[in-house]
């Protein structure tokens, strides 16, 4: 159980956002008033309908966008006063479309690009690149031109190029869009590994199955604010909020809701749990 964020909860707070407001040039208010704390090692699923402000929020965390008002603190530093390359060492951001960043002749060069920009030593870069290639299972593709790879592989290259920069926080914007189940499960497993290593993951996604299987915390956004912040179990039991945010709970949770009259609890998030409750229901009858 992850408790709701409360101020003054020790030093493991890696991200702290207070009253963030962001208005795009032209007057579109994308974030109205957002406050959140994220702790080191957390795995946050950032979900919400299109246009709810997820990506805008995420871009405020790595300095690509600067808050119109409010304070974003990353590992104790004010993000608004920190240069993007400095923030890039702490906050890695993998864009939804890998093709927006791939331009090198080989996968290896592509992965080197980030740490090279950050000015690490050659030895250091080599080590980081190897680790990143290993982490995303790309060793066998290292000499291939990234643009010739399949979408799932290109995504892995783009994420590997973030891993090579060795940030503490990973923001992934819909990393599984367009991937088949196998590719997507493999990618999610790799991200899980990063989280186990102690990295903080912020996953922007529409896929509630992935959220239920991987995230420790679900943050639901709607029209520029957070409307729900809880563990997956709590989030999926509130069908009304999910519907309001155009989100679809995992099929197994919907099934559990449909079986409410038979004494199945509403907060089931995995098939195993449902089987457990069904069998127990059968015994007591």
């Amino acid at each position, binding site marked *: 159980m992850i408790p709701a964020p409360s101020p003054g909860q020790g030093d493991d707070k890696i991200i702290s956002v207070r009253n963030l407001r962001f208005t795009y040039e032209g007057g579109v208010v994308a974030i109205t008033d957002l406050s959140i704390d994220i702790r080191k090692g957390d795995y946050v699923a950032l979900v919400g309908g299109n246009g709810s402000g997820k990506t805008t929020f995420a871009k405020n965390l*790595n300095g*690509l966008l600067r808050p119109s008002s409010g304070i974003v603190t990353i590992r104790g530093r004010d993000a608004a006063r920190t240069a993007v390359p400095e923030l*890039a060492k702490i906050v890695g951001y993998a*864009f939804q479309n890998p093709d*927006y*960043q*791939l*331009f090198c002749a080989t996968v290896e060069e592509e992965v080197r690009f980030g740490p090279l920009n950050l000015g690490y030593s050659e030895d250091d870069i080599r080590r980081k690149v190897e680790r990143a290639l290993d982490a995303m299972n790309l060793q066998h593709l290292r000499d291939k031109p990234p643009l010739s790879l399949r979408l799932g592989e290109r995504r892995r290259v783009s994420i590997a190029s973030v891993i090579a*920069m060795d940030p503490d926080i990973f923001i992934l914007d819909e990393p599984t869009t367009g991937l088949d189940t196998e590719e997507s499960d493999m990618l999610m497993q790799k991200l899980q590994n990063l989280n186990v290593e102690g990295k903080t993951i912020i996953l922007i996604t529409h896929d509630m199955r992935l959220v239920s299987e991987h995230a420790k915390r679900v943050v639901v956004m709607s029209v520029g604010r957070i409307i729900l912040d809880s563990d997956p179990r709590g989030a999926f039991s509130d069908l009304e909020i999910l519907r309001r945010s155009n989100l679809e709970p995992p099929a197994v949770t919907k099934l559990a809701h449909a079986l409410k009259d038979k004494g199945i609890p509403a907060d089931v998030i995995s098939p195993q749990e449902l089987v457990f409750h069904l069998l127990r229901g059968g015994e007591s009858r």
Partner: protein
Amino acid sequence: MTGFVDLYTEGNTFLHRVDPRVKITAVILLSILAFVLSSLEALAVLLAFIMVLVVLSRTPLAKTAFSFKFVFRLMLLIVILWPLFDRSGEPVIASFGPLVLTEPALLRGVTSATRIGCLATVWYILMFTTQQRDIVRALVKLGIRFDFGLTLAISLRFFPTFSATIGSIMDAQRARGLEFGKGGPLKRTRNYVAVLIPAIVSAMRTADGLSWALQSRAYGARLDRTYLRDFKMKWSDYLALAAVVLVLVLPLTAKYVFGMEL
């Protein structure tokens, strides 16, 4: 990097309502006039006339200022550069070693800058008051082949999309620690390769997808295509056309028939 990707502003002024074909003709005629006139006074009057039309189009001031900033810079550049290459005439206003500034050269520089100013701004009247699709449709009506018109329409249509893509690409590379506008010229150029290649790849993917989409909707099956909305000249359009022809013919008559120095 901010700007207005579409110059058109919704409106209901006379300039918005008049047939786009008349507007295109008017812009071409006024451009011809800018070439024919040679005196600074006459060109200045023409520029003022164009500015009056811009004001009448009720285009927001911010958009006008943004658009004309480039024109103004270009004019300034011409005034500054002209005397560097043209040192003929008397009297000399100033001289620094080999650099000589003469009054006639300065006058010629200002005159050319004003002419370029006319030629550049007059097209904005069309762009400010006409939707892109109407411009294209009018060009096709005027006899340009439909597929050329469609090509033009598509390039205009994808301009905002493409500039948004470039913005995203620059963001993506900045997130990887790339700093634009830092380092020597060579490094800067190399930095832009990181934007250029993804931009070209993305444009080619878009173009490829677009051509499939066009074909799957039977594009090119018929050459004599029809339109849902057609242009029809009203009496007010003919009146506007006549007025524009007069604006061209009167100064020309004055210059070439009556020998006035315009």
